[in-house]
């Protein structure tokens, strides 16, 4: 892991979790692994803030937790994206695209 690490922007963790869950249900640990893999190790999720984020998203009704069995045959809590979460993800994504596009324009001007 030689790539420089980037700190997470405030509020982007929710977006990342929603995006990851779109691929299918996952438990907390799976999520941390896939975030690292997908971001090629550039993003390091603080595990301590992942679990509060999961609870917050669940309380908002965007994801739904249930007990299932992990690949190592243990009881683990899996999360599914709800339809409300799906909508939220689309909205957040568009907002992010607009924002990053605008920021890119500003940063590119000399």
């Amino acid at each position, binding site marked *: 892991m030689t790539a420089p690490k980037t700190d997470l922007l405030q509020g982007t963790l929710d977006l990342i979790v929603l995006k990851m869950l779109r691929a299918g249900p996952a*438990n*907390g*640990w799976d999520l*941390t692994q896939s975030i690292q893999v997908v971001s090629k190790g550039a993003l390091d999720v*603080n*595990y*301590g*803030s992942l*679990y*509060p*984020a*999961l*609870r*917050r998203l*669940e*309380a*908002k*009704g965007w994801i739904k937790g249930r007990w299932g069995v*992990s690949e*190592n045959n*243990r*009881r*683990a*809590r899996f999360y599914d994206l709800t339809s*409300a979460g799906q909508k939220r993800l689309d909205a957040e994504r568009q907002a992010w695209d607009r924002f990053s596009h605008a920021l890119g324009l500003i940063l590119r001007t000399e």
Partner: protein
Amino acid sequence: MRRVLAPVLLRLKALIFRRASDAELDEELRFHIDRETDRNVANGMAPSHARDAARRAFGNESVARENARDAMRWPLLEELLQDVVYAIRTSRRAPTFVITVVGTIGLGLGLLTTAFTLFDAYVLRPLAVRDPGSLYDISWTSRSGQGHRFTWVQYQALLERNAVAEPFAYVNLITRMHGQPTIGQFVTGNYFRSLGIGAALGRTLQAEDAEAPGANAVVVLSYDTWQSMFGSDSGVVGQRVALDGVSLRIVGVAQKGFGGLESVPLQYWVPVTMIGLVDPGRDAFGSKPAESLRIVGRLRPGMTLDQAKRALVAWVQALTVDLAAQQRVTDVTLTPKGTSIPLTTEVIEVFSPIAIAFLLVMLIACANVANVMLARGMARQREIGIRLAIGASRGRLIRQLLTESILLSLPSALAGYLVSRVSINLGLYGMLAMTPPSYRGYLRPMPLTPDTRIVLFMMAAAVIAAVVFGLAPALQATRPSVVHATRGDFDSNLRPSKMRNTLVVAQITGSALLLICAGVLLRAARNTTTLAPGVRIHNLVQIVLLDRGRERAIDDLSRVPVVQAVASASSGPMDAIFPDLFAAPAGATPIRIKFNVVSPEYFPALDLSIVRGRNFSPDEARARAAVAVVSEATAAALWPLRDPVGQRLVLSTATLENPRIARYHTATVVGVVPNVRAGWIGLPLDMPVVYYPQPVDAAGSTIITRTSGDAEQARGVIERVLGATDSVAVREIHTVEASLAVQIFPFQFSYWIASLVGGIALVLTLTGVYGVLSYLVAQRTREFGVRMALGASPMTLITLVMRQLVRLAVAGLVIGGLLAFGLSRLFGSVLYVIDTHDPLGYAVGLGVVFGACMLAAYVPSRRAATVNPVDALRAQ
């Protein structure tokens, strides 16, 4: 809905099953650490290090757990629960404090609720009929200023006119049913259908019942009357009852809770076509119909009040087009009929002084509790200081203190509810007990049962009170800086005295205001009882007879041994205000004069001596000749420099609308009698009165008999004798003394209420003053000890403490006095009988408050004077 609800349910689940939810979180975190450990092992780490590495990678586990918990639940709600538990625990340690607060607020709130219950029952509660908001009562005024109702023909015309929807008409009548005074209505056939009222038993009245005059002798009873007078007899339909001797068949019982649209619950309904048989004087049918019908209609949907009014004015214009100019319509009045008393500015003017008085008591109670809370806050400085020091935010502490006061307000609301129920029942009982027996049957208050509005009002008032008495002390108590608190120094930078002084001044102001009211009303009540009515009132019995049996009854009366004289009058001497007429000598501007049409026996029976001229002769009485006897005030107003006897008194054209006196158009004055109060004790003695002659058996007049011995006993004898020949001849029979007592009663009652309210306010203020001064004295014990040690005498210390209060008391009394003066200017128009600037009333009110405050201050100041300097200095 599910989507909105699901997150709430989730949180609620987390809140209720806290343990299970926490266990789930723990398991989830454990799984994460285990999985991480497994991976570390798989990556070749030694098992002993693998777990520690996983822990390190995770970071602070307990912070994550706390954050996850907060994200899941409502932290505010949990804090609230904590506060509630804490408040209950602390209040259990201070039962006297809780009892004081609950008792004080309960008392204030109870009185306020009593006033609100009355207001609610009469003004706010919509009548239980279909669409009460669209109902309006219709009346019209002619150019001469005379108010008018309608005849049957006019009502029929309105039905065709379509100006208002579903108009119905009725006449209110007090009659006797089974010998008891009853209040009922003679209504048109569409009355029940229009109001959407069904029958509990049998049927209500229908259109066919009120088609031809005198045809359908039927009656519908109210549910309450069916219960109280007929014992809820299910076989009542088909039975007959006599209403002033007219036999009617009961066809049904109206649905429960319906009592008409008036401010008195009605007891029966009869077709309006029967009115002529029961009361010929108010027969709206026939060739000479009386304008006795009240009409109520509904505003058409989409029509404004103004449009309806314009349509009605046009209609009445068409009705009166043939009449003399003075008798044509100027205006139509539409009064809302949705509640038993319409919410008009006049009603608000009458109710608001009462509301203010009761609100003041509530505020004084709140001020008292605020003071107690303030003192308690000071006592809890150490606790609060420590909590601030270990990191509690001020907002959190204020929230906690407010939770405590709101929690206290709930039992206070319950206590208030009990107080209001007790005071309402005592009030009703007192009113009944104070009413002369022969008048009790007419006392029919609206049901004063509590409803949702009252419960909501109490809850709102209790919570507002809690915030009022709790917020200021909470702000004050949480002000100390952490530095001072930890040092244990709580006095130096706290200045709660300003707030305390303001509260005491406000309390004294409020009590002064209320006791001035009580003082003024006491004087008014005393005045009315000592006022001379101007006529004899002892040994007089007045009887309202039915015209059917009148001649026979008068004949019988003359043979009753206790009856010394029998007279008749259109208005009883102390029954109700005499009606007005406008008259003057020919050519002069007419003045307002009260009139009474009397038989020649009237003057001697009432001890009214003829001071000039002569009484009516029997011939003049029989012929109703155009002659008049005037009071001295009338003579002085119309003929100040001349002998009134022989002068002519001419009625104004407007007055001629009144058929009862039209025949006295130009009357010759034959005599002068002393001044009397024109039918009501509240009227000035020098109000002009004129008398016209009538025979003793004139229809529609009141019989006045002079009796020997006790009037109340004579009343019983007369009622028995007249009842023996004709059981329904007498409609009403009272002693004149009882009528006068009924007139004085409202003055006495309002004085009692004011005294009671003022007294409670005073007691609350006294406890407040006493508590504050006791607290101050206790706080300054060290200072007093030093002063004593330096040679101050006990007297100096007493004056020192007293002077502090005198300053506050004088401020409160001055503000209270000025407020009373200002308010009396505002409400003086309503209380026109009462001298609202009565100096003695003010003096009494202010004096009582001042004296009581001094008394309350003396006890704590004595305590200051008996401080033992050695103990006081050692105690610190």
